[in-house]
């Protein structure tokens, strides 16, 4: 009798212990959240921004020169001496004049005048695959130049020749181009530091020759990181828009130019 009571008591105790151990609120473990570790932040820009070692630089330059040489050796078309048995020899002076005209021409539209009528015999004599390749290359360059020039403002649009500033249409064209290139950092808070001035020196085709940030001292001032971010975005915009859409005439007027980038209007929303 007693034995059974003991067995029953033992089993019941075991049951209670097992139940208690398996209950979630009793076996509550501390919350396992990864500790917030402090991370080591090291500015390594100065160490890693070292230019190529002098030896490596020399080697790279040599390789580049070789590549250039190879390119220049292959590029020019084979010179073919034109032999025209039936052609009437012209006086030397006349030939010089024709050459001069050719050298002076800048307008791609004049290319048409260069096309000569050649007889079938001449065509055979002139046939050379290299020269055709060169012609294709030349036509590519010319078409690119034409495209570039089409991109520019034409003389008809340019109403302010020899006046002080750019005409409205010229300014609008330039602005429209830069608007598309400038990604404004939208996180910047509204402050007085939202104007970045950049001075440009341009080539006649609008390519940027020199770029100078007028507030460059502010860029590196501690506490002016937000201005630096804005200035960086301006620099990227100008580089992205290079070459700029400038008028075809009046180079002297716009060869030096200041662009005032003001983000206030955009950030105000």
């Amino acid at each position: 009798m007693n034995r059974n009571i003991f067995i029953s008591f033992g089993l019941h105790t075991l049951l209670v212990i097992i139940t208690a151990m398996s209950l979630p609120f009793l076996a509550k473990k501390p919350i396992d959240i990864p500790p917030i570790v402090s991370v080591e932040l090291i500015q390594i820009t100065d160490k890693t921004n070292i230019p190529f070692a002098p030896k490596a630089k020399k080697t790279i330059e040599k390789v580049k020169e070789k590549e250039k040489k190879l390119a220049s050796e292959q590029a020019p078309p084979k010179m073919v001496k034109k032999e025209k048995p039936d052609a009437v020899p012209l006086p030397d002076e006349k030939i010089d004049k024709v050459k001069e005209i050719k050298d002076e021409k800048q307008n791609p539209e004049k290319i048409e005048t260069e096309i000569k009528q050649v007889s079938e015999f001449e065509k055979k004599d002139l046939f050379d695959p290299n020269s055709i390749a060169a012609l294709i290359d030349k036509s590519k360059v010319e078409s690119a130049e034409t495209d570039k020039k089409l991109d520019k403002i034409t003389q008809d649009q340019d109403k302010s020749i020899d006046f002080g500033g750019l005409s409205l249409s010229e300014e609008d064209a330039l602005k429209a181009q830069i608007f598309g290139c400038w990604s404004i950092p939208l996180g910047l808070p509204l402050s007085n530091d939202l104007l970045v001035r950049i001075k440009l020196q341009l080539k006649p085709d609008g390519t940027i020759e020199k770029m100078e940030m007028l507030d460059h001292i502010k860029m590196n001032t501690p506490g002016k990181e937000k201005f630096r971010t804005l200035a960086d975005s301006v620099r990227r915009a100008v580089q992205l828009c290079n070459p700029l859409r400038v008028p075809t005439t009046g180079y002297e007027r716009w060869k030096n130019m200041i662009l005032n980038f003001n983000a206030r209007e955009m950030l105000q929303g």
Partner: protein
Amino acid sequence: MIFKYLILFLILLPIKAFALIEVDITRGNLSPLPVAVSPLSIDENSKESFSKILKKENIGLEISIIVENNLRQTGLFNPLDKDAFLQKPDIANLKPRFEDWNLIKAQALITGKVTFVDEKLRVEFRLWDVLAGKEITALAFTTVPSNWRRVGHIISDKVYERLTGEKGYFDTRIIYVSEEGPKTRRVKKLAIMDQDGFNNKFLTLGNELVLTPRFSPTNQMVTYLSYFRNLPRVYLLDIETGMQEVVGDFPGMTFAPRFSPDGKKIIMSFAKDGNSDIYTMDLENRIVERISNHPSIDTSPSYSPDGKYIAFNSDRSKYQQIYVMKSNGKNVKRISFGNGLYGTPVWSPRGDLIAFTKLHKGKFYIGVMRPDGTGERLLTENFYQEAPSWSPNGRVLIFYRETKTNSKGEGFSAKLWSIDLTGYNEKMVETETDASDPSWSSLLSN
């Protein structure tokens, strides 16, 4: 006399002088910035070691994916497809060939290197300006390997800060109420996760109903409302130790708790006999102070970041509206005057805006207004949504949205959503279960 004429002649001489042209650029584009996030390079030995510890084949690639996803989520960046990259990660990290990156229209490039040093994870990363062809930020981090996701978030924060001019919000956590089960018998637990939805953990067991969890400024404590033994009370929970305690011994119901910006006080509502007012409790000496005293229902208090003002909602003008008062309860001013009901005001960490929920013509809106009530902007509209909480940089809001049930009472769900201040970049935040009442932590790596 001759001298005078000479001067006059010189003045009248037509000299051709060109003034320097100045052009004002006041507009830009809002399209996302194209960024190339190169996989972080990793040597074979490190790859093998991390593969054993973390069960990840290429931890460098995994970290770069975290950075990419974070940047994409902001709507401000357009991470480019990795298949288009021409340069290998290890070479790109040493000296990028900018022509190649320019070719795929990348304006910024992120490269890096992962190494296994002394049982630790060491990550170097570099941010390059592709157009200028120069490095603009370079940092290194060392941590335990299990923290690899955080390293990805910290890199994202640094990149975001350098390119946008404001602090990031990626190395943060979100505490929320996890919901499971049918609408009439919901099991609600406190849960915590990284801002991108990973590392989800439950903080309570779901035995009691829990609501409105809010982080302390140090992110170590959480205050929330719990219905323990059917008595709604404000509680404090230490998320590292799991210790809980009731805030104050109030004879009635306490709710809508929130920490003060210095973390020393808790501000909350206390309701008794149908009247609810705003109280604060000092966590050091447990002194309770009554802030508002009005026969109407004053609730949802939120401090300004400098702690000088409190925004709250009250029905003292018959309808529920938002009010602002000094932190001592004086100078109460109504700031919302639009049509509809306004509630749950939350002051932005930047202090420039107050987020709110608005109910108008049966629809719920999440919006923002300036602390003086001007410039009200409604960012998103839905059937039911509320409880906005700010990201630490004050640029993004997280809130929850419920869906309608059908005639059988099915199809109910509650999910977390985020929206930025532009109102265009609205995204659902993935959670393991249904979720409500989110609260965004401050930056963990401050």
